């Protein structure tokens, strides 16, 4: 029941992502029936802005999390299941090198190089910055699974890698992948606010990180912006938490008989 409500709410939010809030009145107008949270500094209905921003942030987070996990599953599988120890060592050094520098520095540098906070620049930035982290987590899990007897059996049976990955590794790595997806989504949602602190934001952008940034700037005069942004973050967290909890708590698909 809870899961159904959550999925319904998620659908509503994803639909709201398509809305582009228009200017409806004066900046900082007080709440009315049509705009229960009033208007923001651009004269837009803040409730619509919040719903749209929550939806867009969710979409961005899910897209990047999915793409990141899929890409790193493939890369990690290649490195972990490769018989060449040198490759594994190389990948470990590469990840450690990239993670030697705080991700925030890479993020700011890349965003600056791309000319500000445009969507393409952000996606490239997030990929570059989060890949080492995702790779480390996923390759760690794959390394653990590699030691499992059933995986060894599958390798002896020379099953195609795609089948091994899709039907035997992913289902048994659900928990780790779920937690990773949650963390990555959280980072993606907040990133624009982070780079906005350093002056790279497009402040009229409709997404949660920027709303949080603007909320901070107007915390004294208009605290509703800040509070509503945090509510948006928690809404996404609860939504994802319920969904991922349901996914990760479903029974693992493994027994030796299912190999064939």
């Amino acid at each position, binding site marked *: 029941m809870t899961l159904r409500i959550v999925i319904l709410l998620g659908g509503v939010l994803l639909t709201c992502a398509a809305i582009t809030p228009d200017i409806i009145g004066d900046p900082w107008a007080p709440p009315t029936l049509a705009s229960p949270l009033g208007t923001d500094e651009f004269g837009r209905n803040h409730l619509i802005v919040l719903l749209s921003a929550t939806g867009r942030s969710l979409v961005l987070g899910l897209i990047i999390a999915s793409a990141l996990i899929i890409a790193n599953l493939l890369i990690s599988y290649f490195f972990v299941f490769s018989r060449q120890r040198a490759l594994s060592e190389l990948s470990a050094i590469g990840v450690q090198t990239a993670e030697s520098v705080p991700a*925030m520095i890479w993020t700011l540098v890349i965003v600056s190089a791309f000319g500000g906070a445009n969507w393409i620049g952000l996606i490239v930035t997030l990929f570059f910055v989060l890949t080492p982290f995702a790779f480390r987590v996923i390759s760690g899990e794959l390394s653990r699974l590699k030691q499992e007897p059933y995986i060894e059996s599958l390798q002896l049976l020379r099953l195609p890698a795609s089948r091994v990955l899709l039907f035997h590794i992913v289902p048994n790595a659900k928990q780790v992948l779920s937690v990773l997806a949650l963390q990555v989504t959280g980072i993606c949602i907040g990133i624009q*606010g982070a780079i906005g602190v350093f002056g790279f934001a497009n402040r009229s952008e409709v997404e949660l990180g920027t709303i949080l940034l603007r909320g*901070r700037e107007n915390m004294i005069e208009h605290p509703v912006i800040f509070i509503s942004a945090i509510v948006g973050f928690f809404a996404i967290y609860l939504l994802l938490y319920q969904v991922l909890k349901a996914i990760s708590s479903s029974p693992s698909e493994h027994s030796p008989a299912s190999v064939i």
Partner: protein
Amino acid sequence: MTIWMREISRFLICALGAHAIGYVVIQVLPNPIYAMLGMSSGVGEISENLPHATQTKNYAERLLDTFRGDLGNTLDGVPVWQDLSFAIFASAPRLFFAVLIIASCLVAVAYAPKRVLAPVSNVATALAFLPPYLAPFLSLWLYVAVLPFLPTFSRQAEEILIVLGLAIPAAVFLTAQVASITIRNLDRPFVQNIRSLGAGELAIRHRLLHHVVFEVSPSLEKILVGLFTAIIFAESLFGASGIGSLTARAIRRTDIDLMLSVILMSAIVVGVLRLSAVGIRNLYGLKQ
């Protein structure tokens, strides 16, 4: 010995590798002349008066200079080592107290009653989802709110709130981890055994603290990186000198020498922490 040689080699490769990657990435940043000269950027002769903004050293020259101890000059003409050391000394007390707060959270959770561990873990996990700059935002708001009541202690209040702003994200992350580790450990068979043998709860927790330290040691690096990220926000928001403000300034102004030095410093510190984590795990007898 082999493990240490391998780890030290990795440390050196990672530090130099991060420095090299940083140099490559920095090349695509905008020319600092634009931010420095504004609308006069178009007059080529003026930029001759900004020698530190128009350096053309290649990577090999920079690397050699670094080995010789010459980190170059900032865009302001200040030796990088001078700015960097000043910033480190400015941030050191804040980081020290932030680490104390984080360690206190670890101990507090490790000794917390079992019935509160699950809710603490859930709340901390939820809070860890929030962006790390939220705590500095709230700190700044608190500072603005209390300043009218504490004008003579404004500097001290600022420092305390900066420390809180940078400690909270890492503390929340560690709390979530420690809570779930402790919950798991309390259900282990050996704990049931020693409890049945009459060991008190405090003694059990004291024993489990070693396990907690051992299990979170690989996360030391992540905690440090989290602290570094938070300090960039906290110090920049408050306008306070330190390594965070310095890093933000280096990136905003495309100060190449300063940025490379910050990247190298960060890589070295993270590398040292990784070596510490290896040391801790060796201490507990776990071979790598």
